[in-house]
């Protein structure tokens, strides 16, 4: 009984997978609320009105901005578009953004995998504190992230003077941009991988251990295949966010043209110089990355829902034979 309660509470606690199971619930024609509102003409009007309101809200707030980006980007034709994204400054911004992203994704993936392993396989003192610390970057304003980095690595900061003596410049240079981006994207991989590791459990890893596998073998042959989709989704989230981070990078970059201007900063620069078509052309590249993230997220959500539903069925079967587990 206790076990069945646990799997019932599993659904609401997974608030990150909102689509979980609701397609089935809403497709069901015998739902009392649906029946109640569909039967009367008032109900049909209400239903139509609500759907139209939703279309209006999402149309104005989500669809129109997307349309604006591409319409403005191509307003002056292909030539202007191509020229805007292929001039040396734009290419320098692309190069900088790509190298920052590659570094951040590599660091945060390595950290994310070890943190997820540590936090999902063991229970220890201070575990909750570590989880809160990992989530912290999500609730700090990007601008404040920039300020924090200046206080540590700036000229009068804790480490700034020492690093300066060694000839390393962090603020208004490449390392600062990487640090700012890595800070902002720190939780993304951990959260995805840790959630899945916790749902999957450790039974197979322990079996592998009993059969004599060492730590790396267990991780590579047992854990990695189980979590690869979560890992991929985390990496894609991290990539998109790294490419698009604006506030934190803006504070520590110094806006040196051709050197510390990342793609979003370049968009701002062009926009403030009234080169709207060029700004939107570069913005359309970033929008493309964002749309890819959305597609991957949707696919991933379907996968995890199917898996969760299957998992719950198994739990229910197990729970319906309580004597068997004794």
């Amino acid at each position: 009984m206790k076990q069945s309660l646990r799997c019932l509470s599993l659904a609401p606690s997974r608030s990150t997978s909102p689509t979980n199971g609701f397609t089935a619930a809403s497709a069901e024609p015998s739902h009392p609320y649906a029946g109640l509102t569909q039967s009367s003409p008032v109900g049909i009007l209400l239903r139509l009105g609500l759907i139209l309101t939703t279309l209006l809200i999402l149309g104005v707030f989500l669809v129109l901005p997307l349309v604006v980006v591409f319409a403005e980007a191509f307003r002056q034709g292909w030539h202007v578009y191509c020229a805007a994204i292929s001039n040396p400054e734009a290419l320098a911004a692309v190069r900088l953004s790509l190298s920052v992203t590659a570094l951040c994704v590599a660091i945060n993936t390595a950290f994310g995998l070890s943190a997820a392993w540590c936090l999902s396989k063991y229970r220890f003192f201070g575990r909750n504190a570590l989880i809160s610390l990992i989530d912290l970057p999500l609730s700090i304003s990007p601008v404040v992230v920039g300020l924090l980095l200046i206080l540590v690595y700036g000229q009068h900061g804790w480490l700034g003077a020492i690093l300066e003596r060694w000839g390393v410049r962090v603020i208004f240079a490449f390392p600062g941009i990487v640090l700012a981006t890595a800070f902002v994207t720190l939780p993304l991989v951990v959260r995805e991988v840790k959630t899945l590791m916790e749902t999957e459990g450790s039974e197979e890893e322990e079996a592998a251990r009993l059969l004599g596998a060492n730590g790396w073998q267990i991780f590579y042959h047992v854990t990695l295949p189980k979590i690869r989709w979560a890992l991929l989704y985390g990496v894609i989230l991290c990539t998109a966010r790294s490419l698009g981070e604006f506030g934190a990078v803006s504070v520590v970059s110094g806006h040196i043209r051709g050197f510390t201007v990342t793609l979003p900063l370049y968009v701002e620069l062009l926009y403030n110089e009234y080169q709207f078509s060029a700004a939107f052309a570069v913005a359309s590249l970033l929008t493309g990355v964002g749309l890819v993230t959305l597609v991957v997220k949707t696919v991933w959500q379907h996968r995890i829902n199917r898996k969760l539903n299957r998992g719950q069925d198994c739990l229910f079967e197990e729970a319906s034979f309580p004597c068997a587990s004794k």
Partner: protein
Amino acid sequence: MPFRVRERHPTLPGFGLTLGITVSYLGAMVILPLAAFTTFLASGTGWSTLWEPRVWSAIRLSLGSALAAAMVDAVLGFVVAWVLVRYTFPGRGFLDALVDLPFALPTAVSGIALTTLFAPGSWLGAITEQWGFSLAYTRWGILIAMVYIGLPFVVRTLQPAIADLPSDWEEAAASLGAGPIVTFWRVTFPSLRPALLTGMSLAFARAVGEYGSIIFIAGNLPHRTEIAPLLIVIKLEQYDYHGAAVIAAIMLLASLGILVTINALHNWQLRWQEGSVA
């Protein structure tokens, strides 16, 4: 229960290594900057910044608009979440996927897109201009950007709550003679309130700290349309680190307060739902 014991005496290797990596990375990336920030604040004068009228009005504007945006998000998000969960219509899957767009789009891109959409003379701005008012470069612009950035939080926290509503309650209410409105207001809405509040506080926290999508549409006039994060950037450009740190501290305190509130709400919601299941 056998697995209780297993959790306390882990047999899997790698605890020392992964814990070491986790703690040292978090130490260097998160704890070190926060420690530097706290000592800087403790040592600093700078608290007089708070009494500058420009700072005060920026903080008030940021907190006030974020609160208003969270309320607008609550209403719009409720309708959107309800329709996406309860009704089927062509294009629903597409719209559902699109809800996450404000997360996926870089904030600078959202910023210039919203500004172009609402600026006088273009797109929707041309329509509002005919009616005699402009939304961009005013406080309404700030509100629009904040509503945009916070909408997915409300929708995504409400969707699972609406999908998991115990349907027998509504049936029971209907069979006892309650009309749809009474059923909604007395039975359905109260059970969604915790999720709605959680979504609102997430939207609020994000809106208070948001920078990229707001600065383009805000107009950035001191005392009128200048948000707190922008003022931090301005102070940093003037090398007034103490002033910037004090404003940041106020914003961090607001975020922290929200974080604590969210946790409390979440626990409340879980306890409530477990109670309802039992």
